[in-house]
């Protein structure tokens, strides 16, 4: 009996463990291997060393994708965190109807990026969306055609992504705010600190772990952003909103350059790992301390 109890958890977990081992980690290894081969349309196994990586970084296209990722990633993470924190602080003022307002902000997260992208494509389209609406209302000088402008199109991706995710970040911060010990705040109030000062000097610094979690969640969403870009701009105008994920798909599956595609996938994985591993490390370390 005792024996069975000891083995039961392992038995139950074994199938999913095995499936993940094969379909995630084995395929990561396989992709890594492919990135060193001369695979074009189908996988092939001629070893070419780092040739695919050299080629990858000489491609103007990949540079565009990296620059776009940098613009998108930074703005997305910063704006989402700032907006999420602000909303959370405002909601935390013990206002009436919080239970009603909170889900409204959180709801966009329930939509898939495809839906968000398609909806925002229509909002932002000058012919049918916001610009057209204002023109019909009589404000004919109103001008908002970023989605059609190759220099600004990447910012429309930021707008749609922020709309989608900031409510979720708000929920994370709200949970963090609710976890702050009331005694500390009361002590500060007795000492005569203003609410702004309390937030700035006491509460926000105490939320460091929440910032870290939000950063990790948002950063990996940014790196793997694919569906939103495809639905919103299709990578255009021209190739102006190409990001690494769309690059990976097009090189692997439509351009018959599987080797280059695999190497870009590996670079993206390295990016994700370089965010996740320090995070896990710090989490595990602080766990040990407690």
């Amino acid at each position, binding site marked *: 009996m005792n024996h069975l109890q000891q083995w039961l958890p392992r038995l139950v977990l074994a199938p999913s463990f095995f499936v993940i081992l094969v*379909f*995630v980690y084995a*395929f*990561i290894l396989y*992709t890594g291997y492919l990135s060193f081969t001369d695979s*074009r*349309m*189908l*996988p*092939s196994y001629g070893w070419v060393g780092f040739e695919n990586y050299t*080629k990858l970084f*000489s*491609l*103007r*296209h990949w540079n565009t994708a990296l620059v776009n990722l940098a613009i998108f990633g930074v703005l997305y993470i910063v704006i989402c965190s700032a907006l999420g924190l602000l909303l959370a602080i405002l909601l935390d003022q013990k206002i009436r109807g919080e239970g009603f307002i909170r889900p409204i902000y959180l709801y966009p997260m329930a939509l898939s990026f495809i839906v968000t992208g398609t909806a925002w*494509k229509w909002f932002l*389209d*000058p*012919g049918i969306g916001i610009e057209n609406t204002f023109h019909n209302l009589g404000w004919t000088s109103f001008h908002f*055609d970023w*989605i*059609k402008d*190759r220099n600004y199109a990447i910012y429309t991706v930021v707008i749609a992504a922020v709309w989608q995710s900031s409510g979720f970040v708000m929920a994370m911060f709200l949970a963090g705010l609710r976890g702050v010990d009331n005694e500390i705040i009361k002590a500060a109030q007795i000492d005569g600190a203003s609410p702004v000062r309390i937030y700035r000097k006491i509460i926000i610094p105490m939320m460091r772990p929440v910032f870290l979690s939000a950063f990790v969640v948002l950063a990996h969403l940014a*790196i*793997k952003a*694919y569906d939103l870009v495809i639905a919103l*701009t*299709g990578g*255009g*105008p*021209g*190739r*102006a909103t190409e990001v690494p*994920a769309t690059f*990976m798909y*097009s090189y692997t*599956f*439509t*351009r*018959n*350059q599987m080797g280059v595609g695999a190497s870009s*996938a590996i670079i*993206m*994985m390295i990016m*994700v790992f370089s965010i996740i591993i320090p995070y896990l490390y710090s989490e595990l370390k602080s766990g040990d301390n407690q």
Partner: protein
Amino acid sequence: MKMRNLALSASAATIIASSVSIASAEDVEVLHWWTAGGEAAALNVLKEDLASQNVGWKDMPIAGGGGNDAMTVLRARVTGGNAPTAAQMLGFDIKDWAGTTGNLGNLDSVAEKEGWSDVVPAALQEFSKHDGHWIAAPVNVHSTNWVWINKEALDAAGGKEPETWEELIAVLDAMKENGITPLAHGGQAWQDATIFDAVVLGISPELYKAAFIDLDGEALGGEQMVEAFDRMAKLRTYVDDNFSGRDWNLASAMVIEGKAGMQMMGDWAKGEFLKADQVPGEDFVCIRFPGTQGKVTFNSDQFVMFDQGGASEAQLAMASAVMSPAFQSAFNVVKGSVPARTDVPDTDFDDCGKKGMADFAEANASGGLYGSMAHGHANPAGVKNAIYDVVTAHFNGEYDSQTAAEELVAAVEGAK
């Protein structure tokens, strides 16, 4: 990203799992992307023909124009050792498959018996044959260097169908003055490239061949290519500002509704006009891109047979049915394309279809029949997409014409 890969392979696996039922020896399992109403109806002709010969049809439609999704599924199936009997393919995809896997069926016996070599133009045989053996049966020929003009808008702009680049510009200018969008266009890379095909061919067929088929660096970066890019920039000035990302059929709708004057698009656009009850010659006019009269850039859908221990009886029956003049006529009347055989009577076709068939025959006879770069019939997918990158970047104003020509050389070199 790994998760996405996983999701992709998982969904591919589901598709495979749901579609694999054991095909009997006398069944053909056909992978294709003809899912639109008219196309599906046209395929029924083929199904019924095969049914009368006791060959069953297992349909495996993968929706998605251009067939990218279908090719992804096909890859998964072939990698998994479970190839379909036949698959719809385009241009260089056929060559890539033949060159990479080598396990395609051999249709020589039926091709010889029915004399395919005499009726299929050599430019098409280039794709239907590998190492001198027939591996595919061509179904249709689309040509891409068409211009579709709203008749009313043309009449208001002088009424004369443009025959040269200068006349085209004059008509476009007149349309602009009349207050409509002269050129309906959708800003997607393949649509930009479709126009580029015609523009380059219009400058000179030699340039087209040297640049896109022979991939000659001097032609790709030469003076004439700079001029071709200049012409693209000129055409850009006639497109409305809201064009990027627009689907081609919406651009056709602009011409049909009279909001725009013309569209430069392959003959599949005709279907949109016919669906809107427009009559060729009365409501709309179809002309070859000015300067490319008598020449044709084509793309051709073909059914490629996968090896099943030599070609099976069912495969040979299917290939024979695909090549029968009755099917070629029935299918292409619906599809808007022209038959892949040059000996099919044009009685059932409308005016544009008749013109298309005549042009096709003329181009074939005079050596003016070229595979379309924009549609994967002039060079492999990697090169094609590299050219797309440059053409679309230039069309969206990222490069000037001189830089674009230089970038074109570098891009093609990098993708070879």
